[in-house]
């Protein structure tokens, strides 16, 4: 059972279709496992429907319905494709990363921490998307965060001073969160994190200033 949920404003941005792809993925993975948030999103989707209904309406071309009908008649029947796609569903995570998270080409970073940057799976998005793995029982060094970092737990659990975060829990951290997570339980803890565009300085002073903004 998940205990840490996305806040209502993020769910509204999701329902309105305004989130970046990696952020939407984090919310989607949480929704798949959290009836509570799913029901909040249902209400928000209804809000979208009512907002659309309350706006001015714009007439459509008189021949549009006919062209829609002729498209439907000329295209192959897709009904079966939709029905089978529902029965043989593959989670978005599996589509993206394959079946075994542990078998990914992890890069050992330091001590108990391994990372894998998967930003290239989201072309055109500005955020950095990273998987992080903390070995079972392992500790990550104390650290803060640059900008907002949205994280969802994919496997295992970790704990810090704010509590225990289990599988499918959702957490947003920022510069003010100085934490020292520990993997709890007998599994490695794997998280998916989306980091808002890091500050990048360009020009002559780059090398000089960068160490100070890390």
């Amino acid at each position: 059972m998940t205990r840490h949920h996305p806040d209502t404003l993020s769910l509204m941005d999701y329902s309105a279709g305004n989130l970046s792809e990696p952020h939407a993925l984090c919310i989607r993975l949480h929704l798949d496992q959290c009836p509570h948030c799913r029901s909040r999103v249902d209400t928000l989707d209804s809000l979208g429907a009512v907002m659309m209904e309350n706006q001015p309406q714009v007439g459509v071309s008189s021949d549009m319905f006919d062209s829609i009908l002729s498209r439907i008649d000329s295209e192959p029947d897709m009904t079966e494709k939709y029905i089978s796609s529902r029965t043989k569903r593959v989670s978005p995570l599996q589509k993206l990363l394959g079946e075994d998270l542990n078998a990914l080409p992890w890069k050992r970073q330091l001590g108990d921490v391994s990372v894998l940057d998967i930003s290239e799976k989201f072309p055109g998005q500005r955020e950095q998307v990273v998987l992080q793995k903390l070995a079972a029982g392992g500790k990550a060094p104390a650290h803060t965060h640059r900008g907002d970092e949205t994280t969802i737990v994919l496997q295992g659990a970790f704990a810090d001073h704010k509590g225990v975060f289990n599988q499918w829990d959702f957490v947003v951290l920022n510069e003010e969160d100085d934490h020292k997570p520990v993997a709890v339980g007998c599994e490695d803890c794997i998280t998916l994190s989306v980091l808002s565009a890091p500050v990048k300085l360009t020009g002559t002073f780059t090398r000089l200033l960068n160490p100070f903004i890390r």
Partner: protein
Amino acid sequence: MTTLDQKPARGEGRKDPWSQLLLKVGKNQDRQAYHALFEHFGPQIKYYAMANGLASHAEELVQEVFVSIWRRSCLYDWRKAAASTWIFTIARNQRIDMLRKMKRTSAEMPVETEDLWQIPGENDDEPVTSLHRLMSERRVRESLSQLPEEQITVIAKVYMESKSHQMVADELNIPLGTVKSRVRLALNKLKVILQDQNV
């Protein structure tokens, strides 16, 4: 539109007329019902496209949405969403999809739009829960009419114009915090009103 005048069958009393029409499309490929849906939702979706900056593709979006409605209607489950909510999510997804495809080729998109944004009632194993879902639209409509205009304006910009809270703040020339608190107040009120009604 004679379809709307027919008396609902037993047990169908909770379905709104649009959901009944959509079910007919799904079950019998009923083109008259499909046309009635088009007349009602087509102009809404066209405005949605224009408000979202897709003016030159507005009619294309309406077409894509309706082709998608036809194909998926067999999956529509009235117990999981009212037709208008279901159609809103399809319009939203087609808008996102259209923008994604304008920017890059499909080979560059390992994740499909629908892997990220879900249509209610699809990819959803949970047993049919609730009247909660079904009724939520009616409640939202009633609650919304009680909100102050300034809150509705902010929500409309988020939903209809895909604006971030920061963009709404810039446009209305108010602080970001004010935008967020208006949204929170509105969403709380929607929820509070629901609780008051004991749902």
